[in-house]
């Protein structure tokens, strides 16, 4: 190499070296950029790669009756899971599983669908609610079922099945719509209250989910648990219900096709029993109800899924007569002695309104009018009080106000007013409307709960009784401002109804001294008796087909001295009030008897 060549080599080598240094600096600055400037961003990504948080389902709160009897409990549940990394071998896994336990074709289809949909680290639920036999069979063949594990969790159990189904409700997995509205419900295995008490106090019963932070590898297999925040169980809640009375009332109502009853403690407003018949088994829902059972429940003519005690709207019939009487007394329109002549009919213009007693009651005062349920007396009184005042008193007593605020499917009855008719029916209020409202027919409707509240308010001395479902929530009720003399008079009339031989509830009176009841019967027409039927001598509906017969109602209280229990009973299409009276009698007797019977 010549000297010139050598110097050229050196200069080019120097250039190359300089270029290399630049490249090394590039590497270094890139490293600083990635590790220092973007470092925290990549750290988050690295953690996101490896950490998966899995929610832990909290234990739902239990529900007790007022004496501490368990109404809703949690039971151990065994769930068969397929680990996430075995999901791709699902067909093989199912085939080997079928050699051990049975799987329905629908269930298999469902599993395959879920296996395709759900990605990620979550295990796949193969079968929920395993029986003991299935659990032991799976444990025995564990070697043949790779990737399958049994998870021990909890499920809801309702030992107090059909008797409490409407009141307590049931839980089930949230629907897709519910999950959309509240993303916090999207926890696998979480159940929420779907009806009844479970839904009413879901917020308190559900508890707070915990979280488990899991480290997973690139194949999404769980390596270890990094951290765990325990879930907090839901609150245990005591109801005001007396389990024994609830059971008994259910038994009493089960003698009829379709019925409902509410028993309130007059002093505290505590709901002691709330029954609707027929009912259903809420345990079916926790297991996941099958299509046939669901269809049967929905198509049953006696609507077992409906809680008639709080969402059944019925014309209250003659039971409202005590409210009308109280309203007239309070308004100063009548007094104890005011009497009306009842010939068996009452004309509004040229239209006759009949008394249920065809031949008429003769001269009746308020006492007799209530106990013998004279319609004509109340046509006249209602006319004198007028619809405006009448509806105000109805509302004061709790009609049209609903039962338990916010309780699922709790409905409000209708107390018609002039304004209501103008707005809804686009018609003018007529005197006929007032007269019908005065005997609980026409537009007026009420739930058994509302009627129970009204009778409790009267029997309790004019206190604004509000029903309570949770134990220990009662506080003194405000006074409604009724004259005690008027209340006493109405109560006296109710005592006559159930205890004097001419009273409409006399056949179902309580014979035990000191435990007698007072009350008022009612029948509500489902269909008007036509003029031709009336001419043919038909004034009763007992010989009509079941669904056309009148509803039988009874509202009452016991004992007569210091009333403690208020009751409203409806027997649908009973054809008369008699069976309602008898049911109420039995339930009120039981309620009083239970006072002496210590809870188990």
């Amino acid at each position, binding site marked *: 190499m*010549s000297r010139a060549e050598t110097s050229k080599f050196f200069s080019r080598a120097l250039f190359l070296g300089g270029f*290399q240094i630049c490249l090394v600096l590039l*590497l270094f600055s890139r490293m*600083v950029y990635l*590790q*220092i400037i973007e*470092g925290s961003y990549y750290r988050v990504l690295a953690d996101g*790669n490896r950490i998966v948080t899995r929610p832990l389902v909290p234990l739902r709160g239990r529900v007790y009756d007022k004496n501490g009897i368990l109404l809703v409990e949690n039971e151990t549940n065994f769930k068969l899971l397929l680990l996430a990394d075995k999901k791709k071998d699902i067909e093989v896994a199912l085939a080997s599983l079928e050699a051990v336990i049975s799987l329905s074709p629908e269930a298999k289809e469902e599993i395959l669908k879920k296996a395709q949909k759900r990605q990620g680290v979550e295990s796949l639920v193969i079968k929920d609610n395993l029986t003991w036999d299935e659990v032991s069979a799976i444990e025995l063949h564990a070697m043949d079922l790779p990737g399958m594990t049994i998870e021990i969790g909890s499920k809801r159990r309702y030992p107090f099945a059909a008797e409490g189904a409407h009141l307590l409700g049931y839980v089930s997995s949230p629907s897709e719509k519910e999950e959309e509205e509240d993303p916090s419900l999207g926890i696998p295995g979480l159940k929420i209250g779907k009806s009844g008490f479970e839904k009413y106090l879901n917020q308190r019963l559900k508890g707070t989910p915990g979280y488990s932070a899991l480290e997973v590898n*690139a194949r999404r297999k769980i390596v270890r648990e990094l951290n765990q925040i325990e879930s907090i169980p839901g609150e245990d809640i005591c109801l005001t219900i007396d389990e024994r009375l609830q059971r008994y009332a259910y038994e009493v109502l089960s003698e009829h096709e379709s019925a409902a009853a509410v028993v309130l403690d007059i002093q505290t407003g505590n709901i002691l029993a709330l029954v609707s018949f027929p009912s259903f088994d809420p345990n079916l829902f926790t297991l996941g109800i099958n299509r046939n059972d669901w269809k049967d429940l929905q198509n049953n003519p006696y609507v077992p899924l409906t809680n008639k005690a709080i969402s059944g709207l019925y014309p209250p019939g003659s039971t409202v007569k005590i409210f009308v009487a109280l309203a007239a007394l309070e308004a100063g329109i009548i007094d104890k002695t005011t009497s009306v002549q009842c010939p068996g009919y009452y004309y509004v213009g040229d239209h006759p309104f009949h008394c249920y007693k065809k031949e008429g009651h003769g001269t009746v005062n308020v006492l007799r009018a209530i106990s013998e349920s004279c319609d004509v007396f109340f046509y006249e009184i209602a006319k004198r009080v007028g619809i405006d005042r009448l509806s105000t008193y109805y509302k004061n007593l709790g009609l049209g106000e609903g039962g338990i605020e916010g309780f699922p499917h709790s409905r409000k009855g209708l107390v018609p007013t002039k304004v209501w008719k103008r707005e809804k029916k686009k018609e003018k209020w007529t005197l006929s409307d007032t007269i019908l409202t005065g005997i609980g027919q026409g537009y007026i409707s009420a739930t058994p709960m509302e009627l129970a509240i009204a009778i409790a308010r009267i029997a309790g001395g004019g206190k604004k009784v509000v029903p309570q479902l949770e134990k220990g929530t009662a506080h003194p009720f405000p006074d409604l401002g009724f004259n005690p003399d008027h209340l006493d008079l109405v109560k006296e009339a109710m005592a006559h109804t159930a205890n004097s031989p001419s009273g409409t509830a006399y056949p179902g009176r309580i014979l035990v001294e000191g435990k007698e009841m007072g009350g008022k019967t009612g029948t509500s027409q489902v269909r008007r008796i036509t003029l031709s039927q009336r001419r043919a001598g038909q004034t009763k509906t007992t010989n009509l087909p079941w669904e056309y017969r009148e509803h039988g109602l009874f509202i009452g209280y016991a004992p007569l001295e210091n009333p403690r229990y208020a009751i409203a009973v409806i027997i649908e299409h009973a054809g008369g009030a008699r069976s309602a009276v008898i049911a109420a009698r039995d339930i009120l007797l039981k309620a009083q008897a239970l006072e002496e019977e210590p809870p188990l």
Partner: protein
Amino acid sequence: MKTAARSQLFQKFSQLNWTIILLIFFISAIGWGLLISAGKGDPHVWALKQMVRFGMGMVILFGIALTDLRWWLRFAYIFYGVSLALLCGVEFMGFIGMGAQRWIDLYLIQLQPSELMKVALILALARYFHSQSQPLSLYKLSAPLLLILIPTVLVLRQPDLGTAMILLMSGGALFFLAGVSLWIFGIALAAGGASIPILWNFLHAYQKKRIFMFLDPSQDSLGAGYHITQSKIALGSGGLLGKGYLQGTQAYLNFVPLKQTDFIFALLCEEWGLLGGTTLILLYTLLITLCSHIALTTQNDFGRYVASGITVTFFLYMFINIAMVMGLLPVVGVPLPLVSYGGTALLTLLMGFGFLLNVGRQQTLKVPRLSIGIL
């Protein structure tokens, strides 16, 4: 006589640049530490095997370092010819393995003719330029150009983009150092640019995909862009001081694929942070500086070109790998020199360093020019 030979051997040993040998050992030892971590703390998985290979490689290194440089000048073309023949053998007779036709299995070390070619090409070019006087006309350059292009095309067909790049670039660097006019480089670059569309058709689908992914890795972060995305996450999440030895979650949980081979730098940076990465790059830079020093101070042209070629090749290994791991270059499959798990690259590198130390030992040796012929 016996004692004379022994003292001669001892003298040769003492003439070796032991600082370079120590640095090689040091960098390799870092590699072993990382391989233990990649094996989740178990040295049996990778580290021990790699240590044995290192030992074998060192024997070859010393074997080459202690020979006469002139001997290698003489056999440079033969060596190149044999390497080319083996490369053709892999190409046409098909020693098939790993999906790409790259391997000839020699038990613990798989001999890869393309690796051998990296050293052979440098020796052949060094001999060619050693024998030529300036100025180098275009005609004179056609022979060395073919020396580069024939193996490059063969390697590209294998397909091994990384090796092709190293062959082309180390050859190009020797052309540059040999004083080839800059305008010739200009023409070569233009020709290269023009041939990209043609070369594109030769690329395999996965290579095209890798290049696309390089241009936009976020496009498919679970598919082909996964390597580079996860590698960047590993590296970036290391921060200043790293997550600690054996604590690299990205590598430990298998998010970074090939963490023991091509992506081991990501593992280093995840566990040791910027500090670890910088330390390794500094050690590399120091080694390259010492090698460059040998290249610059050698007085014979052959030795000078050999030392330069080896140094540039080593630099290319390092730069391409680290740039690839950091997402600055497409994923082309070049290991981190002396650190990545694998025998073939290690063997090539230690062979290369053998030549480099050989040159360093005989810097003042007069090497006569040879005729154009093969020997």
